[in-house]
């Protein structure tokens, strides 16, 4: 009887203590300095640095035209749901084992998080992004004396992405974007006699490619909304 009474007492004590502990925790939060609150609640000002591996598909509409490349970027977050990305990348593609192509990009994108990242405590944060870049394309026919041609153009790109937030400061992001090259078209023309030439056509249309990039990003510091 005494034992049963003791257990009852313990259960009762825990039941009474639990809300008290909760209150204590709330009290702790209540004591957070204003500077800290701004730091955690307002995500604007986050600057992150990332590196990425990029794969480019459908170069100029060719399903076999797959390129691989690398790049780096930094992100400046402007609001809780809006981020910006400034990047540079380079990738190379094989054109039917007859020529190859290098694409150099430098540009920027605006990212909008589809759901509130909640200070990146959420594990998955999907986003849409769109932007613009400058693009230098060089095509060279394979071989020691292969001719080459280049084109400098502009590109607009847009797509979808998702970040996996390993910690609130560190994320791995995967992005799929389609990019349209604006301006002159640069192509490898394969002739019936087996020879190839590089042709440039003015205003021939929009060339494009699908870029999939996997990046690792870390928030290094805050430009504004900093801890006081």
């Amino acid at each position, binding site marked *: 009887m005494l034992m049963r009474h003791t257990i009852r007492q313990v259960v009762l004590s825990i039941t009474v203590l639990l809300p008290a502990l909760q209150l204590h925790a709330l009290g702790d*939060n209540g004591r*957070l300095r204003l500077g*800290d*609150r701004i730091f*955690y*609640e307002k995500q604007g000002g986050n600057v992150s*640095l*990332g*590196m*990425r*591996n990029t*794969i480019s598909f459908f170069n100029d509409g060719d399903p076999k035209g797959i390129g*691989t*490349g*690398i*790049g*780096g970027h930094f992100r400046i977050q402007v609001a809780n749901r809006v981020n910006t990305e400034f990047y540079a990348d*380079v*990738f*190379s593609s*094989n054109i039917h*084992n007859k020529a*190859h192509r290098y694409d150099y990009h430098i540009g920027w994108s605006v990212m909008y998080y589809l759901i509130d990242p909640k*200070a990146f*405590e959420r594990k998955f944060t999907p986003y849409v992004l769109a932007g613009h870049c400058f693009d230098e394309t060089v095509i*060279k026919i*394979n*071989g*020691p004396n*292969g001719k080459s041609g280049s084109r400098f153009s502009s590109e607009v790109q847009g797509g979808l992405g998702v970040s996996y937030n*390993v*910690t*609130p*400061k*560190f994320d*791995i992001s995967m992005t799929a974007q389609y990019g349209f090259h604006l301006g002159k078209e640069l192509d490898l023309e394969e002739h019936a006699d087996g020879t190839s030439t590089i042709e440039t056509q003015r205003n021939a249309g929009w060339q494009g490619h699908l870029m999939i990039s*996997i*990046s*690792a*990003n*870390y928030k*290094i510091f805050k430009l504004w909304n900093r*801890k006081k």
Partner: protein
Amino acid sequence: MEPKKIITTITLLIMVLTQVNAQRVWETRKGIFRSQGNLGGGYMIKQKTVSAYCNGEMELFFDDRFAYTGAVCFSFLTLKKNQTGVKANHAVFAGANYHFLKPQRFDPYIGLTPGAGLVQARYKEGEELKNTPYTVVPLLSVQVGCNFYVASFMHFFLKVQGVTGQMFSTLSTPQRLDEIKFMGGLGWNLRLWKPKVRDTWTKI
């Protein structure tokens, strides 16, 4: 030996080893600079040849789990006199590592480390053997590794790195640079700064 004794010995050993493993060398990894230099080997998948490297690597911890990393890889000539293939495959890599466990002696990690190669190949033109000029090649790379900290200033490491890329240069057909690299050795650690107590990212 009796089965009871064997079980007891194994249990005791596990307890001791787990205890050693769980010992912390640092309270926090943030601010640690980790460096390592070693000789390593590789296997080029398409060419089915082995390669050899002198590798230098550094890592800078921005928090307990995350570190920026960079590496320089100098390759040794492993081609025979009349063999065609990749003659030189030097590379630099830069990226990020994620460390799975809280600071302790045993420290496995995974990394994304894109890089650039400085590559030279030997090819046949007619009966003549020729070398391409050194060419810069983008390289995709991921790595997994594990460190074991003997002391706060020293550790042993093992690392496997997967690299992929392609070289064109003056070759008539592109040369694949897909490779698995194996590295291991001794590394050194240095604390560059001590994190402030409030310098953490916590939930409110």
